[in-house]
C-alpha cells in the first residue's frame, strides 16, 4: 500500500515547476493528434445521418421513407422498430429515445437513421423523408410551460430560518427579477462515434464522450447485450464542456445499432448545425427575489425563486438545478433563506450539463441581488459583498453544511489591493462624470464552488497501471481527456510515485475494458478522483517493489527509495528499468488497479440537507468594462483574477483552465445568445449566428494569479479542482456592465433592467429602461 500520504509530500520532483505541457501538445500543433474522425476508415464503413423532426411537439402519423431508401448511395434505413431492445439513450429517467416512436417532443429530434456508403449520400437521403405529423400543443417558452404546469419533476425547496417573517420585519425590502440565457457548448469537434462489430455479438465503439461507461451501458441495453459485450474507447475529445456527458450517447448508440444490424463498421459524424439543433445546452434561468436587508447591506432574509427551462426530457436537470440552489449563497451567509426551484418541461431540446452545472445560474442570481441591494443603499457593491461573507459564527450554508475552508475574505482582500480596485473605482466615477456617451464600470465578484458530484455514489474512480519489464509505464484511468489536461496530471502523479521522468509514462486511451464502472469526467473531478486512484494503483506496485528489493538486497523497506537519480536499495543503486526487469524475473506482479472514493460526503436530497461537497474552490475577479450609450456596444477592458487551485498539480494547465473558463463565462454573459422561434426551432444553429468570444474579446489586460494555499482536505497533492470554478469569475463582467449602464443615471437608486446575455441590443434596452424607471421614480 501507499508508503506515504499522497496529500502531503508530492511536489518534490515531476510535480514541481516548471509545468509540464499538455501530454498531446506536440501532436496538437503538428496535426498528428488523432480524433475520432481521423482514424483510418475500413473500406466497408457505413456513414450515418439522422432524419430529424421538423416539429416541436407532434404525433407522427406516418413516415414514408421510400425515397430515402431509394436515394443513391443508401445502404439501409432504420427506425425505432429496428432497435433490438431498449429504445433509450437517457442517463437517468429513460425518457430519451434513440429514435422517436409515436410522438416527437422537440424540433430536431431523431426520427430515423440513414446508413450510406458516404456521409454525403446519407445526408442527402435523410432530407427526402415524407413525414406526416399531427401537431400537439407545444410549450416552447417558460411562460407556456408554467401555464401548462409542465414540469420535469416537482418544484424543490431549500430553506433555513424564517425568510417570510424576517422579510416582514426587515428595515429594507426589495423585489427584483431578471433572466439569463442558455449557452451552446460549441466544442470545436462535433459529436461523433464509430462502432465496429466484433465477433459473437460484441461491439467496439470509439466515442467522443465524457462518459464511456454510460455509453457502454446504454448501448448494451439498446442492443440487448451485456455490458461485457460492449467496449467503449475514447483517446481524446476536441472539447466537451459537459456537452459530451450525456449527449454523446445518441450518436454512439446510432453507430452501434447500425454496426450490430449490418456487421459493418459505422460512423456518425454530426454536422455542426445538426449538432447545435439536436444536442442540449446550458439551462436558461428566470430569477425572482425578495430580499430584506439592513442599512449596511447585511442580508437578513432572502426569498429566491429560480426557474429553469429544462427542455423535453429529464436528462441531468434535477442535479443541475440542485447545484443552482447550492450556489445561490456563493460566498455569503444567508441567515433566513428560502430557495424555490422550478424545473420546467418544454418542447425544446433537453438542456444538459455545461461547465458549472447550474452553479453559474445560482451564483449570478445572488451576485445580482447584492448589486441591487448596494445600488438601493447607494453603497459600493464591494462593501455590501464584504458585509455578507461567510465568517466565524456565520458559516452554515442553506443546506446545512458548515464551511471550514473559507478563504474568500482573504482572496478578496488581496485582489482588491493588487487590482487597485478602490483607486480605479474612483477614477471611473470621475471618468463617467465627464463622459456622456461612453460609460465605464468595475466590479469585484468572488466565487465559491462546491467540489464533488452531489449524487454521492458518483464520487469514485478507478485506474490501471502497468509497469513493463523495461521500466516503461502505461497509465490508464477512468478520466477522459477533453483538453483539460487530466492525462498529464495523472501521469505526473504516477511518475512521482516511481521517481521517474514523465517521459517514462504513456497515457493510453480511456477504455471500459481497462477500467470499468467509471463516472463521467465531470464536476471538475477528473484529476481529484483519477489522480488518487492512479496514485493508489502505482503505490500498490511500488509497495511490491519495495518488498522485493528489501528482500533481494537484505535491507529494510525504509532503505528503499525511488528518485530521479534511480532506485536505492540499501547499498545498491539501480535504474528503474533494472528494478522492473529484476522484479519480473523475481515473479513480482508489475500491474495493479487502483480505486478511490471521496470520503466524508453525504446528502439527503429529500430534505436538501447534508454535506454534498468535500471542499470548495475559491476565486475572485475584478473586471472593468466600457459601454456605448448610443449603441449598447461594450468592451471588457481589463480583468484581474486571483484563483485558488490549492497546491497545484500543474500551474500552467490550471492557469489555462482559469483563462479559458473565464472567457467562456464572459461569452455566456455577453455575446452568446440562443434564439428560438415561436415554433420551437433554434435559429442560432451555427457559428454564423451564435457568437462565442474571439481573440479580440479577450480583455487586453488579463492577469491571473494562483492563490498560494493548499487544500485543507487530503486531496492529491492538496490540489483543488479547477475545471468549472473559473467560469463563474466572469460574473464580474456582468456586474461591471450593470454599473456602467447604471452610470447613465448616476443618482438612480435602482439597478438597470439588464438580462443576460448582455448583447448590445439588451444593453441598449437596459439603458432606455433605466432612464424610464428613473423618470417614473
Amino acid at each position: 500500500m501507499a508508503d506515504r500520504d499522497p496529500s502531503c509530500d508530492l511536489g518534490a520532483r515531476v510535480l514541481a515547476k516548471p509545468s509540464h505541457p499538455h501530454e498531446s501538445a506536440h501532436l496538437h500543433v503538428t496535426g498528428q493528434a488523432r480524433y475520432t474522425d481521423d482514424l483510418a476508415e475500413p473500406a466497408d464503413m457505413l456513414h450515418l445521418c439522422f432524419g430529424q423532426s421538423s416539429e416541436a411537439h407532434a404525433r407522427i402519423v406516418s413516415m414514408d421513407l421510400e425515397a430515402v431508401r431509394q436515394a443513391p448511395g443508401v445502404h439501409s434505413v432504420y427506425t425505432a422498430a429496428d432497435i433490438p431492445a431498449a429504445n433509450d439513450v437517457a442517463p437517468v429517467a429513460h425518457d430519451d429515445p434513440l429514435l422517436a416512436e409515436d410522438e416527437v417532443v422537440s424540433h430536431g429530434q431523431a426520427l430515423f437513421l440513414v446508413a450510406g456508403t458516404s456521409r454525403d449520400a446519407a445526408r442527402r437521403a435523410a432530407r427526402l423523408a415524407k413525414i406526416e405529423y399531427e401537431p400537439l400543443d407545444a410549450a416552447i417558452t417558460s411562460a407556456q410551460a408554467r401555464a401548462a404546469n409542465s414540469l420535469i419533476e416537482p418544484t424543490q425547496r431549500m430553506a433555513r430560518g424564517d425568510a417570510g417573517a424576517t422579510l416582514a420585519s426587515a428595515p429594507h425590502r426589495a423585489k427584483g427579477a431578471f433572466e439569463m440565457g442558455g449557452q451552446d457548448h460549441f466544442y470545436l469537434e462535433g459529436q461523433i462515434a464509430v462502432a465496429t462489430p466484433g465477433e459473437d455479438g460484441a461491439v467496439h465503439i470509439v466515442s467522443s464522450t465524457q462518459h464511456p461507461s454510460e455509453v457502454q451501458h446504454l448501448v448494451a441495453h439498446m442492443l440487448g447485450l451485456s455490458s461485457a459485450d460492449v467496449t467503449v474507447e475514447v483517446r481524446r475529445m476536441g472539447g466537451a464542456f459537459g456537452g459530451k456527458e450525456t449527449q454523446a450517447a445518441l450518436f454512439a448508440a446510432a453507430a452501434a445499432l447500425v454496426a450490430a444490424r449490418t456487421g459493418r463498421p459505422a460512423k456518425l459524424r454530426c454536422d455542426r448545425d445538426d449538432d447545435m439543433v439536436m444536442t442540449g445546452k446550458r439551462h436558461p434561468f428566470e430569477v425572482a427575489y425578495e430580499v430584506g436587508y439592513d442599512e449596511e447591506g447585511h442580508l437578513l432574509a432572502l426569498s429566491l425563486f429560480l426557474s429553469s427551462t429544462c427542455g423535453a426530457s429529464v436528462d441531468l436537470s434535477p442535479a443541475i438545478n440542485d447545484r443552482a440552489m447550492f450556489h445561490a449563497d456563493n460566498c455569503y451567509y444567508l441567515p433566513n433563506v428560502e430557495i424555490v426551484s422550478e424545473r420546467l418541461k418544454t418542447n425544446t431540446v433537453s438542456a444538459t450539463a455545461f461547465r458549472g452545472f447550474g452553479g453559474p445560474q445560482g451564483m449570478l442570481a445572488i451576485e445580482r441581488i447584492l448589486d441591487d441591494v448596494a445600488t438601493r443603499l447607494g453603497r459600493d457593491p464591494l462593501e455590501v459583498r464584504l458585509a455578507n461573507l461567510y465568517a466565524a459564527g456565520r458559516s452554515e450554508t442553506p443546506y446545512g453544511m458548515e464551511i471550514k475552508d473559507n478563504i474568500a475574505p482573504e482572496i478578496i482582500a488581496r485582489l482588491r489591493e493588487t487590482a487597485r480596485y478602490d483607486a480605479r473605482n474612483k477614477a471611473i466615477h470621475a471618468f463617467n462624470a465627464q463622459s456622456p456617451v461612453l460609460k465605464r464600470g468595475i466590479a469585484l465578484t468572488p466565487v465559491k464552488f462546491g467540489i464533488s458530484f452531489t449524487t454521492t455514489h458518483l464520487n469514485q474512480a478507478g485506474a490501471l497501471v502497468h509497469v513493463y519489464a523495461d521500466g516503461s509505464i502505461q497509465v490508464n484511468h477512468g478520466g477522459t481527456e477533453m483538453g483539460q489536461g487530466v492525462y498529464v496530471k495523472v501521469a505526473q502523479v504516477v511518475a512521482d510515485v516511481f521517481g521517474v521522468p514523465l517521459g517514462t509514462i504513456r497515457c493510453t486511451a480511456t477504455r471500459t475494458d481497462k477500467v470499468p464502472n467509471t463516472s463521467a469526467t465531470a464536476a471538475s473531478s477528473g484529476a481529484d478522483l483519477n489522480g488518487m486512484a492512479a496514485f493508489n494503483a502505482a503505490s500498490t506496485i511500488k509497495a511490491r517493489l519495495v518488498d522485493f528489493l528489501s528482500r533481494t538486497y537484505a535491507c529494510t523497506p525504509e532503505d528503499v527509495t525511488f528518485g530521479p537519480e534511480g532506485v536505492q536499495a540499501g547499498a545498491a543503486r539501480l535504474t528503474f528499468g533494472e528494478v522492473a526487469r529484476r522484479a519480473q524475473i523475481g515473479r513480482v506482479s508489475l500491474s495493479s488497479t487502483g480505486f478511490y472514493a471521496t470520503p466524508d460526503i453525504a446528502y439527503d436530497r429529500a430534505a436538501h440537507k447534508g454535506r454534498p461537497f468535500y471542499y470548495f474552490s475559491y476565486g475572485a475577479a475584478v473586471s472593468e468594462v466600457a459601454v456605448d450609450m448610443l449603441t449598447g456596444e461594450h468592451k471588457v477592458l481589463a480583468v484581474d483574477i486571483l484563483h485558488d487551485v490549492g497546491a497545484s498539480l500543474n500551474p500552467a494547465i490550471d492557469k489555462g483552465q482559469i483563462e479559458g473558463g473565464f472567457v467562456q463565462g464572459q461569452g455566456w454573459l455577453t455575446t452568446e445568445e440562443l434564439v428560438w422561434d415561436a415554433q420551437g426551432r433554434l435559429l442560432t444553429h451555427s457559428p454564423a449566428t451564435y457568437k462565442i468570444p474571439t481573440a479580440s474579446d479577450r480583455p487586453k489586460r488579463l492577469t491571473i494569479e494562483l492563490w498560494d494555499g493548499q487544500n485543507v482536505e487530503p486531496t492529491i497533492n492538496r490540489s483543488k479542482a479547477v475545471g468549472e470554478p473559473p467560469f463563474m469569475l466572469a460574473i464580474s463582467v456582468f456586474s461591471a456592465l450593470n454599473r456602467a449602464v447604471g452610470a447613465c443615471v448616476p443618482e438612480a437608486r435602482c439597478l438597470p433592467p439588464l438580462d443576460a446575455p448582455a448583447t448590445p441590443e439588451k444593453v441598449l434596452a437596459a439603458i432606455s429602461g433605466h432612464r424610464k424607471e428613473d423618470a417614473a421614480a
Partner: protein
Amino acid sequence: MAISFLLDGKRIDLDTVDPTGSVLDFLRTQLRRTGTKEGCAEGDCGACTVLVGTLEASDRVQWRALNSCIQFLPMLHGKALMTVESLAHDGVPNPLQACMAANGSSQCGFCTPGFVMSLHGRAIGATGCELPVEDVIAGNLCRCTGYGPILEAAQEVSVLAQNDAAVIAQLAEIEGGAASGEWEGRRWFAPRSADALASLCREYPNATLVAGATDVGLWITKGLKALETAIFIGDIAELATIEATDEALFLGANVRHADAHAALAQLHPDLGELWRRFAALQIRNAGTIGGNIANGSPIGDGPPALIALGAQLKLRSTEGTRTLPLEDFFLDYGKQDLREGEFVAGVRIPRPASGTVIHIAKLSRRFDSDISAVCGAFALTLEKGDVACARVAFGGMAATPRRAAACEAALVGQPFTQETMALAASALREDFTPLDDVRGSADYRLAAGGNLLHRLWLRAQGNSVAVLDLEALDG
C-alpha cells in the same frame, strides 16, 4: 488534365474533379491528411485553415489563409497548398509549433492546426498579416484557452523564413490557364479572361458564378445543392484591378476584400475599420468586392458604405458594359438589376470631397467576424454650417441595402446640429420597417441606427465615441 496544384513540393494532377468538392474533404478523405479539421463547414471557425499560394508577377508567391471547408477543388488550379502537415520537417515542429506546444496554446487541440496555419501565414507575410494579431486570428475560434497563450506565441514567433524558390519554379510549370470539366453531368468552367467569362455567361445564362465561394460554399455544405453549371471566376486577373486616382477608387469585381482593405482605408478610416471587421481574414482572402455586391444580401457589409459614398457599379456582358448607381442595382430581396448574360465587373467609388462628414458603423453581437444587425453609412456635405447634401444608406433595415430618403430629406438644408440629427433619426421610422430576426429586433435596429446620427455629430465635434478606442483606467 482538369486541374493541377502543388502540395509540399509535389505536383498533384487530377483528371477529373467534383467541382463542388471541398479542399478539406479532399485532404481528409483522399489524401488522408487529417491534421486539417472540420469544425463547422461554413467558414466561421477556422479549424480547416490552410495556406494557398499564388504566383504573382512571376517571381513571388503570395500566400493566403483560407477556409478549406468552403474552397472548391477547381479553385486550387495553378496554386500551391500548404497544410499543418507541411510545417514540421523530419518530425521536428517548426518554431511556431514548438512555441505553441510549450506555452499552452492548445488544450483540446482541435482548433490548433487552424491557428497554426493562420499564425504561420502571418509569420511568412501572407495577405493581411500587417493587421494586429487579433485580427489575423479573428476567424479562428478556440473554445478552451481564452486565446492568451496563442496571442503570446504569435508575439514570440512573428517572423519565419519562407523560401519559395522551388514553389515559384514549379508553379511556373503548371499551366494555370483556363480549365473546365464535367462531373456526374454537371459542367464547370474556370475562365481566365473577362471576354471568355462574358461568352460563357451568354452561353449558360443560368450558370452559378463562383468567385470566393464564401456564400456558395454553404449552398453546398449546408444546403446540399448541386450546381448544374458553375463558372469559377476568381482567377480572372483583369477583373481584379485596383485603380486609385485623385477622383475615385476603382475596384474590379474580383478584388479580394483583403486586397481592397488598404485602398478603402485610405479612402476613409471608417471604411478601413469596416473592412477590418468584414467577416474574418480567411473570408476576406476569398470573398470579392463583386461577389459581395452581386450576392444582393440585405446584410452584406459593403453595399451600405459604398452607396453612401456614391459608388457606381460597372456591369459587363458580351453586349458591352453599363454603369448604374449602386443603390439602383438592388431591386428587391434576392433580385438585382442584372440582365441575362451580365456580370458585375467592378465598382467605382468617388473620393469624398473635403469637408464631407462621413460615418460608417457596423453593429453586431460580436465585434469580430459577425454579420451586422445594422450597418449604417452617412456622407454629409456641409456648407456654412448647413447640411447641403446627404447620402444615408443602411443594411439590415430592409430587404435590400437601401438609401434612407426621409432621413436624407430631414437633413438637407438644415443646420448641422444635434437637433437636426435627432429629427433625421426619427425620420428613419418613415424609411424603414425592419424585421425582428435572429440578429436583432426592429426596435433595436431603428433605435441604434438612429443613434448613429448622434454619434456622427459628436464625432464631428471632435469627441471620441468608440468603446474600441478605450483602454483600462490606471486609477
